[in-house]
């Protein structure tokens, strides 16, 4: 697939933006201003950025518990996203959701969820809705290798296949469900093999390469829009940090970690190198983009820090459309 320079630049920009956002979250966490826990997507930015760039604004994404990158890559307001992580009133969920429920519905995010595997059925319903309303919108569902062991995986892949839904299943295989390696939980060497049982075409790709993710998603989205049904893409990737805020991830073999966390495998470096080689950007452009994005992220961080917490009694709002 020939990818034009403008798109390459966009892929680089979104990957970097996602990285800088997560680094900001990590910094704020270091300042001890992020309540609760965090599931960072540092290291996995290429998946979010590559997928989101292949979608149009009205397409939907269903996120997982590791959702910051999905939301940012789909075009969320970073100020509202960071404010949410800090539990502020100005957060996109008014401080009711936090990291695990980070969502901006108006840019097409159906929601992030704290229950592993629970997003798949919701994606089925959203795709069914797109089909029944006769739109040409598609739904992309992000989930991890861990979720593929949940019953919803089988139920939802099956339903998406029998109804030929406009749906793309994105497995972010980072090889660990919390601390449990996939070798202990999955008998096949890839998650993608499981799709065959549901007659769903699948592909295993380098999830640290934004361009590869983009190309595979474009193809899958095309199938979905044409009414040919779902595709599963297994993006093999790796967490730069542990599962959650206090996990140093010491259970990962050094050799494995060294490979995945090397500069050559780094998602931002990979797409930057491609964009440079193909003449989509110059070194100077890359620096300019970085400075601009860093400013945006810093500004969002300041907004979040300066924002007020909700009033305590706001805990009672938004249970129902009208209070009962």
């Amino acid at each position, binding site marked *: 697939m020939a990818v034009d320079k403008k798109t390459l630049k966009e892929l680089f920009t979104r990957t970097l933006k996602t990285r800088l956002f997560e680094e900001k979250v990590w910094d704020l966490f270091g300042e001890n201003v992020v309540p609760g826990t965090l599931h960072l997507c540092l290291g996995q930015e290429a998946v979010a950025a590559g997928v989101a760039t292949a979608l149009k604004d009205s397409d*939907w994404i*269903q996120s997982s518990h590791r959702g910051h990158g999905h939301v940012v890559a789909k075009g969320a307001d970073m100020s509202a996203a960071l404010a949410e992580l800090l539990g502020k009133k100005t*957060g*996109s*969920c*008014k*401080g*009711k*959701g936090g990291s695990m*429920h980070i*969502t*901006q*519905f*108006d840019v097409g995010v*159906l*929601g992030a*969820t*704290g*229950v592993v595997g*629970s997003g*798949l*059925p*919701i*994606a*089925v*319903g*959203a*795709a*069914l*809705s*797109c089909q*029944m*309303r006769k739109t040409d919108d598609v*739904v992309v569902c992000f989930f991890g290798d861990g979720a593929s062991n949940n*019953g*919803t995986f089988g*139920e*939802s892949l*099956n*339903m998406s296949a*029998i109804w030929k839904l406009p749906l793309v299943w994105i497995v972010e295989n980072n090889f660990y469900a919390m601390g449990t390696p996939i070798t202990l939980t999955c008998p096949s060497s890839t998650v993608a093999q499981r799709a065959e049982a549901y007659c769903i075409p699948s592909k295993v790709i380098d999830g640290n390469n934004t361009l590869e993710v983009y190309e595979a998603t474009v193809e899958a989205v095309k199938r979905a829009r044409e009414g040919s049904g779902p595709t599963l893409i297994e993006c093999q990737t790796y967490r730069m940090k542990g599962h959650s805020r206090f996990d140093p991830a010491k259970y990962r073999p050094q050799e494995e970690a060294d490979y995945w966390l090397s500069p050559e495998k780094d998602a931002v470096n990979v797409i930057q190198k491609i964009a440079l080689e193909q003449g989509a950007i110059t070194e100077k452009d890359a620096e300019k983009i970085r400075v601009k994005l860093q400013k945006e992220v810093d500004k969002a961080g300041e907004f979040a820090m300066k924002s007020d917490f909700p009033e305590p009694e706001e805990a009672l*709002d*938004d*249970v*129902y*459309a009208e209070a*009962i």
Partner: protein
Amino acid sequence: MTEMVYREALKAGLREEMLRDERVFLLGEDIGLNWGGAFKVTKDLAEEFGVERVRDTPISENTIAGAAVGAAITGMVPIAEIMFGDLITLAMDQVCNQAAKMRYMFGGQTSVPLVIRTVFGGGKNLASHHSQSLEAWFMHTPGLKVAVPAFASDVKGLIKTAIRDPDPVLFAEHKLVYDKKEEVPDDEYLIPFGEAKVRREGADVTIWGTFIMLHKALEVAEELQKEGISVEVIDPRTLVPLDKKTLIESVKKTGRLVLVTEETKTGATTAEIAAIVQEEAFDWLDAPIKRVNAPDTPVPFSPPLENYFIPDNKRIAQAVRDIV
């Protein structure tokens, strides 16, 4: 007015709403062409509206409920049928963690206008996995509304209200009321949620109950009238929102309360009602509140065992006599 059974009145309500609003659709196991629903509520609807809108699904309760959630948040109005209330255990994540909480945890960004229809209750020798009364679980889940229609004239107006409600509604039915006949208005009518109905006026004792127990309570009231005991019978019609006012006013009038449901006793809806009444009408009570429930066991199979398990007219009458 036309005399019809509960099942027909419910179907008429579904049909009217499907004619009124093309976003309304049904999904569930065996609800379509070949079966028309395990209790025949949706019989002939697939022929009339097509298999897209009366959609048979695989046996995948969690994804049936989740698909309803996904469709609801993207512009459809789904009505998911879970064939037996016992099987909703397989869909609890989607019903209680997703549908019920989305509006709240996403800070009001999302409405979840769906209906989950299911059926509770014993009396048909279907044993422990097809007979339970689990409505209290859903009353205990903020974000859900819970309808408990017990009469044909109510079920049509309540299902129409449920379908038009912007929040998720657990619409509970009961196996033994499907064949109960009543005069049902021919013209369109909606019954607001949170309005109980005094099914029989009386002066000495108030009976509050649900489903088939209300039918039994009315028989008991008739019988006790001959003994000079005047019984008032209240049908809450919805548990969430709950009409406390009608109940409290009745208790203030009669000074005595008997609570009757088919649920196992501990943690049942009746426990909550008793707590509310002692908080809000303690000074008006002339006797302890009596609870008539099933014992704290699974639902047994054999007829003499099940007959012992389910409260009968005799037990209800005795509870009334105990406090008069």
